């Protein structure tokens, strides 16, 4: 059985799954798992050997022959699609079942497998026309997944915002691909480094794909969409879908000639996304919104790696560029895995308590130990702490930056600030995830529904465990991943087709394993010692205060206040304060809200101007016939003027 047959099988099975989704949940689950398994097989096949599946159809679709091409770069992303797609499908069975969601469960299943299928197609289309088709189909199925719960007003609003932003990006891609086709004379895609005149197109692509990837100024749609979507959808959106935008950037930065400023721009964009994304992450008080902003941050980290890679490739295919690029690609996998894990865990919290508001949760670890443990695991991983996998990829990116800096390369002006930005990002992310995990799972329950939470079942636990296991694998044996990782690296830049790891991955892996063991041993030992000495339970010693209430706990807002204050220039927090007055103050309150700065402060005013123009137009058309005739005559005059004076 060849890779091509495997791919074809996967596509057919997923189509069947889509059709079976509305009516037959079990069949759907089986088919979706089979399809994702086939996808995974094909992807690993492509990554294993440097085989490339290249297939052109005999028939034409939309006037162009289908052209599928599965090379290592596509396969790298396809792996993620397959894993998360399968895990989410299993999760759906318990999280979004027919008996709880009679109206939307069926649609949800169908669109889910459609989404997986479309993302798979996007990764394989090597023809601009079909790439756009798959791209838009993927965007639309994502839209229908986000709006599954469409009787909720905010879900509809979030869905519309997503669709609008996504369409803006798609129109950017319209321009990109039609320019490409207009200049090369064919819709076919492939390496075109030998057309220097195509270089400026990179900027159009950066916009088009950047919207989907949620890079900082273009991320406006991301938080609300990921927060309001059903959690398994948030997981695949945040873990995989936004990576499609990244795939576009990687793919076409590898195929097209690049303008001189490309690496610099990408690096700067990445640094901004990373730092500000992290700042916004810390400031959020809605668990899923926090996770969503964290995706912006991680895309920033990946983009820093990509930017260094571009600079490295532009400056003579240097080793440091290779390291950073490897880190970026590896972080794609890592972030995909633990971000999905975190969203699934958040979903199980939402399922158990019915709220995403962190200041209404707390102390859940007792009721839902599995979720708590898995979320904690994810938090450590996403804060890029050793001994987990997040660290491995960020370490590679750091290594690229440090190598470049140590080498006193000409582009160090860009490299050094990026390194510092990455450090700040790490610290912010750590703060954010300490906060998230602690506010939700530690301390005392802040509300009744938090107190009466229940653990999720195995259908939801199993996918989370799978994702966590994958993370552990990547963490403890990064050197095993290298043989796969070098394929996309080589496919992206043939000069980097080298065999040996760019960094002491083996040493790092060994150290991480040792550290893990040591940590476990130490924890165990301390626990035993404490038991031996006698372990007594008592009230929290709140500095002698004997009657602590749950309201006394630090909330997410107060936890973040300090750092938020430092980033107020970007976050623009809105505060409403009423100080306690008089000897026996009746009431005092302090409301704080972190606005969607870009959306409310930048997009808002612009759209108001447009709407004003629209209103002006409407006032011109009030049903008075003489006016209409006048417009007609005015049009006549205008056309006449254009004819007479237009020539000169």
């Amino acid at each position: 059985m060849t890779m091509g047959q495997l791919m074809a099988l996967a596509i057919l099975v997923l189509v069947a799954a889509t059709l079976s989704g509305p009516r037959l949940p079990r069949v759907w689950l089986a088919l979706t798992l089979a399809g994702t398994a086939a996808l995974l097989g094909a992807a690993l096949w492509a990554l294993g050997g440097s085989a490339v599946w290249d297939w052109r159809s005999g028939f034409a679709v939309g006037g162009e022959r289908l052209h599928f091409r599965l090379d290592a770069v596509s396969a790298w992303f396809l792996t993620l699609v397959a894993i998360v797609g399968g895990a989410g499908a299993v999760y759906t069975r318990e999280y979004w079942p027919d008996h709880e969601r009679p109206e939307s469960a069926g649609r949800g299943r169908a669109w889910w497998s459609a989404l997986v299928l479309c993302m798979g197609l996007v990764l394989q289309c090597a023809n601009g026309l079909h790439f756009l088709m798959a791209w838009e189909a993927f965007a639309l199925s994502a839209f229908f997944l986000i709006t599954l719960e469409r009787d909720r007003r905010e879900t509809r609003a979030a869905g519309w915002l997503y669709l609008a932003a996504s369409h803006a990006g798609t129109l950017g891609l319209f321009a990109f691909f039609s320019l490409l086709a207009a200049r090369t004379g064919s819709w076919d895609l492939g390496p075109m480094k030998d057309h220097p005149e195509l270089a400026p197109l990179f900027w159009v692509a950066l916009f088009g794909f950047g919207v989907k990837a949620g890079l900082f100024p273009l991320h406006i749609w991301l938080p609300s969409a990921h927060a309001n979507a059903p959690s398994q959808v948030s997981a695949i959106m945040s873990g995989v879908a936004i990576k499609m935008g990244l795939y576009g950037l990687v793919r076409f930065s590898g195929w097209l000639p690049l303008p001189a400023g490309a690496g610099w721009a990408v690096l700067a964009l990445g640094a901004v996304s990373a730092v500000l994304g992290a700042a916004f992450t810390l400031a959020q008080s809605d668990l899923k919104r926090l996770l969503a902003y964290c995706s912006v941050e991680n895309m920033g980290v990946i983009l820093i790696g990509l930017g260094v890679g571009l600079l490295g490739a532009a400056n003579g295919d240097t080793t440091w560029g290779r390291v950073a690029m490897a880190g970026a690609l590896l972080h794609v996998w890592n972030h995909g895995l633990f971000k999905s894990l975190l969203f699934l865990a958040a979903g199980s919290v939402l399922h158990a308590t019915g709220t995403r508001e962190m200041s209404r949760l707390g102390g859940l670890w007792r009721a839902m130990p599995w979720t708590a443990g898995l979320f904690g695991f994810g938090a450590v991983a996403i804060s890029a702490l050793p001994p987990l996998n997040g660290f491995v990829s960020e370490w590679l990116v750091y290594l690229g930056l440090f190598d470049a800096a140590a080498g006193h390369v000409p582009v160090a002006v860009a490299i050094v600030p990026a390194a510092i930005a990455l450090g700040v990002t790490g610290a912010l992310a750590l703060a954010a995830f300490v906060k998230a995990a602690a506010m939700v799972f530690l301390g005392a329950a802040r509300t009744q529904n938090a107190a009466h939470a229940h653990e999720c079942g195995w259908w939801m636990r199993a996918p989370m465990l799978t994702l966590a296991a994958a993370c552990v694998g990547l963490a403890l044996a990064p050197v095993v991943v290298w043989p796969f990782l070098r394929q996309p690296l080589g496919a992206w830049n043939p000069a980097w087709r080298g065999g040996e790891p760019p960094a002491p991955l083996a040493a790092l892996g060994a150290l991480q394993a040792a550290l893990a063991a040591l940590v476990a041993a130490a924890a165990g030992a301390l626990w035993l010692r404490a038991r031996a000495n006698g372990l007594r339970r008592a009230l929290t010693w709140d500095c002698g205060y004997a009657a602590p209430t749950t309201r006394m706990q630090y909330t997410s807002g107060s936890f973040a206040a300090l750092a938020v204050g430092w980033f107020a220039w970007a976050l623009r927090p809105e505060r409403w304060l009423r100080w306690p007055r008089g000897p026996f103050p009746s009431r005092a309150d302090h409301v704080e809200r972190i606005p969607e700065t870009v959306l409310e402060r930048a997009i808002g005013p612009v759209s108001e101007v447009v709407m004003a123009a629209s209103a002006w137009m409407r006032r011109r058309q009030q049903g008075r016939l003489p006016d209409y005739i006048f417009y007609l005559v005015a049009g006549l005059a205008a056309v006449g003027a254009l004819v007479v004076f237009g020539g000169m």
Partner: protein
Amino acid sequence: MNDLLNLLIGLAMGLNLVALGTSRLPSLIRIAALQGMVLGIMPLVMEHELRVMLLAVAVATVSMKGLVIPALLRRAMRTANIDRDLDPLIGFLPSLLLGAAGMIGAVVLARRLPLRPEHHESLLVAGALASVLAGLLLLIGRSKAISQVCGYLILENGIYLFGLLLIHSTPLLVEGGILLDLTVAVFVIGIIVDRIQRAFDSLDTRKLTVLRE
């Protein structure tokens, strides 16, 4: 020959100004009808020998433009017992001035345009343009439905005038078709006006503004 034609055209152009200046609905209708008749007899003046088809066309035009449609409009006006003053959106004096300016402009333009030798002396082009302008001016400047129909009539008269330039070249079949279409159009408009007057109790188009943004 040509002088007679120019005389008629001048008459039509004068009627344009009167139409712009009049403040009463019945007189406006009368003016439009009169202009229609004047135009109707022009082909007979232009042609040397009388052809049956030509005669038929002339008769049809005169009867339609001069009699039937005005009658229709009068009926609508009477049944819709609306006040006979047509309150202008553009005042009478301004419309008069605009009309005069348009007429002068039309004459100037007609002089600048390349014309066939046999049309050098005739006022056809100028008259056509002037009537078209006057018609548009009425359509824009008067608010009552009937007055707008009159404006439309005058506009069409202008086009008809221009059509006379081609009377030798275009086959009468086409001419006839065009005339038929125009008259039917105006007829339909008349019918609709009649219907509207049943639907709404007034023909003031300022009241016909339910459909709006």
